[in-house]
């Protein structure tokens, strides 16, 4: 029975991934879609680039610039996947009004949401690659492709995507109980991580009380590992005494804790939404 459930869940993930990809990509011809996929990530990186250039008067060859740029590039996963998964609830409920049909089909909503996030992961991966390539070619970010530990990079990205997906599903649970302006709630949760995880600066410059939060969040260790793997070094004094192995260990432990928490919270919110008949509520106004 458990094996059958696993097969069903994997099939759900596969089909909902295909659905997510179709919805993300079939609104434009491939060329326009490619332009769109390139412009957005480059623009968000250029904001930070110019913030840096304004203060340093053009010097981009410093470690801090590379630190900011690479952190921002990988952080795109957080916003895009987090938003993409949580928005599925709103989209299926309010725009297409299909959520009740998904609920009464023989699938588990948790895995449906998991699959819907896959399309965002794929699109964001392309965006991350483009952003890093832009940084290397145009801004001369010192990334030595021959020196990168690719297995560690791959494992780190996979764990990070799993964490972000769990967070997205947690938010999706919250979206079941909130109205459509909870778009800002998702943005706000993403901003918490943007602020506390050291995406665009070392966490050492944060106030001490905020650093405690940073150390509890798995994404802090995720970004630190990614920067070490890609750049070969890091600037964070606070995290410098952790080896890669220790960072990976902390990342795995905090990921497991967050995954369990996310599952519990999602189930709780879903139960409340069912109890009060809010699964298919319409709140567009």
């Amino acid at each position, binding site marked *: 029975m458990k094996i059958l459930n696993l097969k069903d869940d994997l099939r759900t993930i596969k089909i909902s991934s295909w659905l997510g990809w179709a919805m993300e990509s079939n609104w434009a011809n491939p060329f326009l879609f490619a332009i769109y996929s390139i412009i957005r990530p480059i623009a968000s990186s250029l904001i930070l680039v110019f913030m840096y250039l304004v203060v340093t008067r053009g010097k981009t060859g410093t470690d801090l610039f590379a630190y900011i740029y690479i952190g921002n590039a990988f952080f795109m996963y957080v916003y895009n996947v987090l938003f993409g998964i949580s928005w599925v609830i709103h989209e299926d409920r309010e725009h297409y009004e299909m959520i009740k049909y998904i609920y009464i089909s023989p699938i588990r909503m948790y895995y449906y949401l998991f699959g819907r996030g896959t399309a965002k992961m794929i699109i964001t991966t392309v965006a991350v690659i483009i952003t890093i390539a832009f940084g290397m070619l145009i801004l001369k970010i010192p990334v030595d492709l021959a020196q990168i530990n690719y297995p560690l990079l791959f494992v780190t990205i996979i764990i990070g995507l799993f964490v972000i997906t769990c967070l997205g599903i947690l938010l999706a649970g919250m979206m079941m109980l*909130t109205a459509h302006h*909870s778009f800002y709630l998702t943005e706000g949760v993403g901003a918490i991580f943007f602020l506390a995880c050291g995406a665009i600066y070392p966490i050492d410059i944060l106030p001490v009380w905020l650093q405690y939060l940073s150390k509890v969040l798995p994404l802090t260790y995720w970004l630190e590992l990614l920067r070490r793997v890609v750049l070969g070094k890091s600037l964070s004094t606070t995290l410098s005494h952790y080896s890669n192995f220790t960072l990976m260990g902390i990342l795995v432990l905090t990921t497991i804790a967050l995954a369990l928490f996310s599952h519990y919270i999602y189930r709780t919110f879903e139960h409340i939404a069912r109890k009060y008949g809010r699964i298919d509520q319409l709140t567009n106004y």
Partner: protein
Amino acid sequence: MKTKLNNNIRTVIARAYVRIYAANRELSWLISETVMPLLGTAAFVYVYKALKAPEEFTGFVILGGAMTAYWMNVLWSMAAQFYWEKEMGNLELYLIAPISRMSILLGMASGGFIHSSIRAISVFLLGSLLFKVNFAVISWGKLFLLFILTLTALYGLGMLFSSLFMLYGREAWHGVNLFQEPIYFLSGFYFPIKNLGLTVGLVASFIPLTLGLDGMRQLAFKGGVKTGFLNVNLEIGILLFLCVLFLVGSHYALEFMEKLGKKEGRLTLRWQ
């Protein structure tokens, strides 16, 4: 004439009413639109702190972060609004009602303005207090005038965009997404626009927030004039021109797009 004016005024009030009162039925916005927007802005403040930037840059970021509220309101609650209405099946009801399309949009703008202002004021006040921003206002009158002209031109631009997006299908959503980060960059939300060069700056000046932010920085911060793009009086003049251009342009654009939509049968197409 008087009846028509009354109808349009009532339309403005009715459309604004939905935005203001309905939002209060669910209070998650109290956190998501007051405290949370500050977090993203705070992250950019810390970037400047990591770079050891002059202190007025903190103020620039707080101001830019506050003004993102209005840009997002223009994009999501005005530009894409007729698209949402089309998806919900309400657009045809609006079009057959004996009211001006501009009054519908003005109502949306008024209602959205309230929430956006709550967000903007929260970010501005909380950010200024938390990061101890020092202001050195040169002229309150010009600052207020600049702010009003910026928002008027901005909402005029929103009306123009809404006419364009009215006939779009799913690409409206992505089109609006495309106008977020690139505009934050081109309009210099978080850094002085002067650093993008004269040509890019002039092109970006078609977005009212570009000159609005630049002018407000020059008038409100100690080092603002040094980082200014154009003279403040010139920026006020350009913004006045943009107000007229976008408001008049949106009227004709709405008429044109409605006629086009009727001709091509796209006004009631949903889920495309």
